[in-house]
């Protein structure tokens, strides 16, 4: 139990995927303009990341490992993630129009989110078991959601602040992201996983 808690804390704060491992930076910069879209993106990513890390784990353990094809994991995971995202989109679209309106546009975008592939590959590298894989994916997604929402809330305030002209727009966004990353370095050493 303590192990699982450590995995969560490690992925959310200490080894945050965006600010410490620098994965999934495109949506981090891209959809953080408005708090509302950031929330939608966070929800969708949490959903997909957890699901795809489980599916990737299953594909690796029950298909690639027995056949001795571990070196094919990257292409297999890409396949798995693409299918999971597509399938999820179809199911949500027909079962819950409300959820589809919230997540709709973001779901296909997540296919190309490198954090998703990163989590799947790191799961294998760390030799996580089934439960740990789920938590690793879920924690990574929570960490992503946390920094994305924090960052977009900050950018909304910066948008109305008096920023010097050369720093307007994405420039100040990059600087803010850098400062956030520095702040998250404060968690280093909290958990050692």
């Amino acid at each position, binding site marked *: 139990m303590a192990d699982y808690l450590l995995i969560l804390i490690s992925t959310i704060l200490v080894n945050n995927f965006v600010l410490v491992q620098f994965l999934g930076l495109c949506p981090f910069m891209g959809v953080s303009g408005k708090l509302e879209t950031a929330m939608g993106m966070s929800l969708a990513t949490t959903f997909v990341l957890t699901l795809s890390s489980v599916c990737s784990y299953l594909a690796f353990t029950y298909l*690639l490992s027995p056949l001795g094809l571990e070196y094919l994991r990257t292409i297999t995971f890409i396949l798995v993630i693409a299918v999971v995202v597509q399938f999820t989109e*179809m199911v949500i679209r*027909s079962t819950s129009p409300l959820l589809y309106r919230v997540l709709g546009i973001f779901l296909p975008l997540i296919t190309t989110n490198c954090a998703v592939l990163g989590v799947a590959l790191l799961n294998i590298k760390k030799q996580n078991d089934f439960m740990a894989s789920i938590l690793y994916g879920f924690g990574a997604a929570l960490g992503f959601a946390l920094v994305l929402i924090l960052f977009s809330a900050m950018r909304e305030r910066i948008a109305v602040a008096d920023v010097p002209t050369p720093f307007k727009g994405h420039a100040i966004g990059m600087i803010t992201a850098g400062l956030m990353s520095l702040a998250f370095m404060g968690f280093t050493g909290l958990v050692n996983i």
Partner: protein
Amino acid sequence: MSIVVIAIAALLSLAATFGAILGFASVRFKVEGNPLVDQIDGILPQTQCGQCGFPGCRPYAESIANGDDINKCPPGGETTIAALADLLGMEAKPLDEEHGETKDKRVAFIREEECIGCTKCIQACPVDAILGAAKQMHTVIAEECTGCDLCVEPCPVDCIDMLPISTTINDWRWERPSPPLSSTQTIIASDRQGTAAGDNTKPTDDGDQQAA
């Protein structure tokens, strides 16, 4: 050699399985939503009067998207028909007489001394233009009334009149030219009848809205 074959076979079977899953899902979880319906619904006047025979504008829009006639909307008149014809790439038709003709702009009026306060007309009104409560006299908000006639029928004491809106100095316009009914009557050359008809009606409609 055999390792390569196994690898290819494994990936192929994985891809085939996923393809089958997605194919199944696309059939099983098919969505009937049609973006065209929203566009058509946007053109319709949203009086929800039901004169087209459908219980509102959206059901009629869905029916048009499935190939129904576009000329069943009396409140919209020629303008709406022309816009629909333009959207759907069809010929504009004259309004279907069966569903009522475009009348002059009218407004409902309740003869208040006769009103018994039954609230039946309030329930019938699609745009909530009638004010009142049970056992209280009702009245019509003239600015909200679309003149759809739906409140006349349910009134048990027949105290609702449809009054034509009288023209004042402020909203008087020239009489609109009669829309061309067939290509032989079109004076100005045009490749589409609807365009001419649509243009003719627009200024008059603006005037009507000001009057209301």
